[in-house]
């Protein structure tokens, strides 16, 4: 019986106009998007490689210099150390925050003031400014925005439309249990929705595979499969929601308007507002304020140091110790400010994320970007890595300078491979999946179950006449 019902649903759906529309949209969108983003990825990868080679060559040139002093001058004071950020292979599918991070970072020491500084490239100058005006139409965007809309459209009149046409009455006048009807509607409709989706996605992945831009195997394949799985779950959330709306309404035009309303709220409004509410609930002082406070600490420290040098000159060693103590105090206070800022920021990020998860769209976005390694995790790992890179370079440069002054630098002190660089702790797929399953995946499953249960309950008491 169920099989017959499902067959009927599939037959009806496949022959409908909306099936063609959905097929055309999915196929066109996913193919165009993978085509464009693959070539974009290849270009970024090329840029990454050539820039890496260029910086490597520059280092080798420094290594081949004869004089130690000249080497140090070139390496630490002139050229500095560059590190590139490798483009993430899965960014072809989910671009995420990758564009908001620099593609290379640099640090060097100033010859005259011996302060450490970074040379910043105006990366926006090299980019078509319209990129930042519009969103990247990647696979994640297509699923998040387009597929959810299409899922709702596919199903909005599943129940109420049949009621309007009068076929539901006829169907139920036979000995068909209502639960089988709704189950078959879900299964038949969902299959018809994801079939064009999966076919188009397969075509897209095949294209990526054929171009050889990304080696899909091992971990990246696992990530991709998880990404597909979570997309299917996400589409099903909206599909079930549409079914629920259809059982709640009696006219398909009402169902359509309600579906559009729900879609606008859950895709466009809630995910946008949640970070804002997060910022209201957990305000974080701006970085400028922290910088200003740090400056104040610096100024106070230098005032106290001056006082010491004036009053305690005759005490010699004791003054030296007092100086050290004051400097250390200043450093600790600055570190505390940093830590305070970091912890507040983390709290705010967590609250924003939690709030936005009212909408499955946000859950999907987080899960998809984490799986593609282009999400908030990448951002924080970059921040940690960047800070560590700066610290390590400073230590390294101080050490080299000291050794140069003491004439203890050997002939082959410069080991290009051992230079400090940006080291980001890798995101392990197990961790991503663990945290995803416990939160985002679970939430989507819960949404699915709740919506289906509600649709079931409402359909049982649906007035079919």
């Amino acid at each position, binding site marked *: 019986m169920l099989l017959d019902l499902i067959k009927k649903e599939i037959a009806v759906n496949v022959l409908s*106009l909306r099936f063609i*529309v959905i097929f*055309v949209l999915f196929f066109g969108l996913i193919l165009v998007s993978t085509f*464009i983003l693959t070539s*974009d990825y290849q270009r970024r990868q090329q*840029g990454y490689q050539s*820039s890496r080679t*260029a910086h490597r060559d520059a280092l080798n040139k420094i290594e081949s210099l004869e004089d130690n002093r000249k080497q140090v001058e070139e390496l630490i004071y*002139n*050229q500095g150390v560059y590190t590139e950020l490798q483009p993430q292979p899965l960014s072809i599918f989910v671009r995420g*925050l990758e564009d*908001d991070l*620099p593609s290379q970072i640099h640090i060097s020491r*100033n*010859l*005259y*003031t011996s302060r450490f*500084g970074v*040379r*910043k*490239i105006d*990366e926006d*100058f*090299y980019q*078509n*400014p*319209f990129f930042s*005006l*519009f969103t*990247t*139409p990647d696979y994640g965007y297509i699923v998040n925005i387009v597929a959810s*809309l299409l899922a709702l*459209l596919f199903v909005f009149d599943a129940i109420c439309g049949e009621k309007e046409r009068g076929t539901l009455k006829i169907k139920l006048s036979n000995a068909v249990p209502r639960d089988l009807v709704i189950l078959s509607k879900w299964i038949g409709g969902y299959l018809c929705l994801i079939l064009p989706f999966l076919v188009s996605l397969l075509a897209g992945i095949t294209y990526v595979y054929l171009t050889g831009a990304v080696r899909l195997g091992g971990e990246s394949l696992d990530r991709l499969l998880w990404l597909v799985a979570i997309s299917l779950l996400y589409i099903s959330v909206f599909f079930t929601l549409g079914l629920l709306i259809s059982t709640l309404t009696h006219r*398909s035009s009402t169902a*359509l*308007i*309600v579906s559009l*309303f729900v879609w*606008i*709220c859950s895709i*466009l409004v809630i*995910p*946008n*507002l949640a*970070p*804002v509410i*997060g910022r209201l609930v957990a305000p974080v002082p701006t*970085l*400028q304020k922290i*910088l200003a406070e740090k400056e104040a600490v610096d100024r106070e420290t230098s005032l106290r140091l001056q006082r010491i040098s004036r009053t305690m000159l005759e005490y010699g060693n004791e003054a030296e110790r007092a100086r050290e103590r004051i400097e250390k105090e200043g450093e600790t206070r600055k570190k505390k400010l940093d830590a305070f800022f970091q912890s507040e*920021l983390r709290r705010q*990020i967590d609250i*924003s*994320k939690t709030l936005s998860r009212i909408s499955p769209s*946000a859950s999907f*976005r*987080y899960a998809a*970007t984490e799986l593609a390694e282009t999400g908030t995790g990448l951002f*924080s790992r970059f921040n940690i890595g*960047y800070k560590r890179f700066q610290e390590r370079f400073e230590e390294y440069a101080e050490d080299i300078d000291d050794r140069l002054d003491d004439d203890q630098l050997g002939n082959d002190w410069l080991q290009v491979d051992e230079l400090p660089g940006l080291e980001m702790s890798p995101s392990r797929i197990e961790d991503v999946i663990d945290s995803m399953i416990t939160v985002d995946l679970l939430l989507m499953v819960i949404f699915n179950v709740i919506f289906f249960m509600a649709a079931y309950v409402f359909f049982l008491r649906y007035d079919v006449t």
Partner: protein
Amino acid sequence: MLSLLIRKELLDHLLSLRFAMACIICPAVVLSGGVVLTRDYKEALLDYNSNIVMHRNQLEEYDNPFSLVDDGNKVDKPLNPMKVFFRGVDEEHTATVRISAIAEPEFQSHYEKNPVAMLFPIMDLAFVAGVIMSLLAIAFSYDAIAGEKEMGTLKVTLSYSVPRDMILLGKWIGGYLSLIIPFILSILLGLVVLLLFPEIDLRGEDWSSLLLALVGVLIYLSTIYTLGLFVSSRTEQASTSIMVLLLIWVVMVLVLPNLSPHIANLGSPVPSMHSVETEKAKIQGEEERKFMDDWRAWIQPAQENNTPMSEMVAKFQDMQTEMRVRIATERTKINDQFRKEMGAQIRLTRLLAKLSPTSLFTIAVCDLSGTGVQEQEHFRDLLKRYSSQWVTYAYDKFDPAIFQGEAELDASDHPVFDYAPLTFNDRIGETFIDILILIGWNLVFFMGAYLSFMRYDVK
């Protein structure tokens, strides 16, 4: 007669569910978006003000002319209150740029911020109108003709002596009015809320560009609405009409605008950042090395001959200035070449964007409000000019007395970065053509709807 028809349409719409939805969505998104963006603006303004003080203090604390050369001056981009309405191409309200004699203007960026918001689009007026309101416009018009046919009321209406063109016009006016009334009211409400924030100081020019942008929004919405009317008069069933319309909507609003820069990037490629940067770095490295060699060759005999300090400083000054100017000239040449190629790409993007009313509209309002590409380029131009001023200034400050500890560096006479945004007339630029194109789309769709409705089978 027409007024009667309009009245009927208005009443029909006012009592419908979609009008209720519009009345919830419009104020909700406009106000929440407004509050968010105003808050952002307020925070950015505080940052900007404290930055200015901080950077001035930093400059005053310099005691060595080398600091002027190497660390330079940090200038801040003044805020544009229009960003509250149309965010434009720069996500940040303000930017800090380091101007030094040794490098190009360097945009200071930090990554210690909440990245969650960056995952989602910003809800400015361009987004609200471009995406949300356009969807509502479709929801308002998809069943205007086909729906009435299905209900059978169209037949009844036409059995009276009502000309068809009147019906269509009545539908257009009535439906459009009921679509934009909630929107306009929410905008007005938003503006009232905005007036409560004295920080947002709109100048006369801003008001006129805001007004013009709002007119653009209304024309844009009417384009989409008329499109809905057209499709509705081409189809027999409301369900077919909505399917076709949503297909068009997805392509027009969600796909084409986002694809246009990518297609332009493929169609008119520019050299990669790394190749250009490497070229510039090479020239800089060569010049600096040459300077070092020349300087060492000059300074050793000079020191042996007990040349006076003032002469050495003057020589250093001359040689450095010469080298920096040479580097800057070469760099400008390379940059200009790159900008020429990027200019071609930007022009292609603009051309492609004209295919979809949404991208056309988005780009036009951003240009108009001074948050678009033109303004960005203008800012870069001003920075470049200031940067070359700074080179001369920084080396002029090389006073032998400072190096001998007899005088202190006084940088209070440093050149000030004077940022004047583009004027209203400059901003308008292409906008008029864009608005004309939108009006053209309106006419085409309305004519299409008219022709189709004339031969529409109402039975």
